[in-house]
């Protein structure tokens, strides 16, 4: 997997992402932000929500917290990271006027967790179109190592047709990286969480961004309370689906939101 630095031009990062299906950018954000987000999410991980979505697919030694914008103010620095969005622009704006957040999910993998089943994130949409429907961005909140469950990526799988699934002969790479870095991968890329063979938990925040004319994976309008959503800047509100796509699709009459009908 190609690695770039914060100083790399976003078009270059995007070109690599398009070609390889995944790319890492190191030193994207300050550690202070990462620590703050992790602190904000701690009680949610440990509370009722953390275990509430455990399943064969999500794992039973993995905690998950959905829709972090209502829980962590500083998560905006990641969810709406400007340089990251420059990369997303290059991929997603080819097929839509504006894109939206699909989901924002914090994931903490505990020692003893096994490999997650390899999957494509874009299968929530029951069509295969000759375009990327979404891009995922994983922010490590702790160090990601090959021992503690760094995300596994199946090389070249974004080029596969709908029928092919990963097999023993396929090459898997792990996204080893430090907090402050980000892993991008295309919605069509086979990937999965790694097994955690270490003694400590591995936390990350995975955000997806999908074409603005698709339904968003998570319903941000009712998931993030209005009084919280109102406090975010317009570009974040737009990412949450408050701005109609191309001024039409997803229209609403609420003048207080971006794109709202002021009349």
């Amino acid at each position, binding site marked *: 997997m190609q690695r770039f630095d914060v100083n790399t031009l976003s078009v270059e990062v995007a070109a690599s992402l398009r070609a390889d299906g995944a790319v890492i950018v190191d030193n994207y954000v300050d550690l202070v932000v990462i620590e703050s987000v992790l602190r904000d999410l701690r009680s949610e991980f440990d509370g009722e929500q953390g275990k509430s979505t455990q399943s064969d697919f999500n794992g039973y030694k993995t905690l998950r917290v*959905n829709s972090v914008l209502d829980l962590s103010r500083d998560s905006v620095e990641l969810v709406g990271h400007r340089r990251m969005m420059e990369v997303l622009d290059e991929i997603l704006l080819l097929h839509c006027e504006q894109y939206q957040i699909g989901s924002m999910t914090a994931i903490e993998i505990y020692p003893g967790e096994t490999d997650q089943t390899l999957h494509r994130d874009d299968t929530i949409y*029951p069509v295969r179109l000759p375009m990327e429907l979404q891009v995922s961005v994983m922010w490590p909140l702790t160090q990601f190592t090959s021992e503690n469950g760094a995300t596994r990526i199946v090389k070249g799988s974004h080029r596969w047709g709908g029928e092919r699934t990963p097999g023993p002969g396929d090459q898997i790479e792990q996204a080893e990286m430090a907090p402050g870095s980000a892993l991008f991968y295309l919605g069509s890329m086979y990937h999965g969480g790694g097994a955690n063979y270490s003694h400590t938990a591995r936390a990350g925040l995975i955000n997806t961004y999908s074409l603005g*004319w698709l*339904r968003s*994976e998570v319903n941000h309008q009712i998931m993030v309370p209005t009084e919280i959503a109102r406090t975010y800047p317009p570009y974040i509100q737009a990412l949450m689906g408050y701005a109609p796509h191309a001024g039409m699709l997803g*229209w609403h*009459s609420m003048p207080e*939101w971006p794109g709202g009908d002021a009349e």
Partner: protein
Amino acid sequence: MTISRFDSATPTTTIVGALWRYGAAIVERLVSSAKMQTIASELRDRFDMQGLSTTNHFNGFQTLRIQSVLGYAPSAAELIGHEQVLAVANSILLPHCDSYRIGSTTGIEILPGEIEQALHRDDSIYPISLPGMQCQLSVMWAIDDFTDQNGATRVALKSHNCMNADLPDLSRISQAVMTSGSVLFYLGSTWHGGGANCSDQPRMGLINTYALGWLRQEVNQYLEVPPHIAVNYDERIRRLLGYTTHGEILGYYRGGHPVWVND
């Protein structure tokens, strides 16, 4: 060439057959005229208060429009969730999604003096067009009688087969003349437009669209018909508004609001 006409006893397969063949079909007297008058009375205030707020060259300057009628006209639910309408929608849309949602519900009152609306396709809000797949179905209810004088909807028959760039064959335009309580179905890709009102009476209709459940909603029903209002409707309507996921995941909501329909 005129629009095929059926009645409430016609089997759904026959109506759907005509819809696929010609792009439009009328079912006469599906509900009583008295029911339509009740709905008209629930819409009246809104028409008078907000009807002119979206006038423009496309919508017309002598046409009143009101959005998202389930927010204030509970009787409209009987039309929007009408069993025979949904049977048609099932047949058109369910081959391409697990569930569909309301795109928009719009009351339209064309006043005397209005000119013909430009012909258009409703599905152009989605920047994809796939042969064999309809993104949406439109259902126009005549609240007043629709006549060739007062602006009955004009439909270009067989235009749903046009390539995007082609303009429809104007010789195939047929007007949806129908009595109050009747309904006109047309495919999302069928070219159509409001008619000129050369009479001395207004012409009121309710146009509802239903779109594949993985596409973004034309009008954000979560904001327009918020949970505290939507909760008063039965499960069928709440599903149509989008208060449930598509498949297991898409549109996910964590939280305990009773408006949400869990499968």
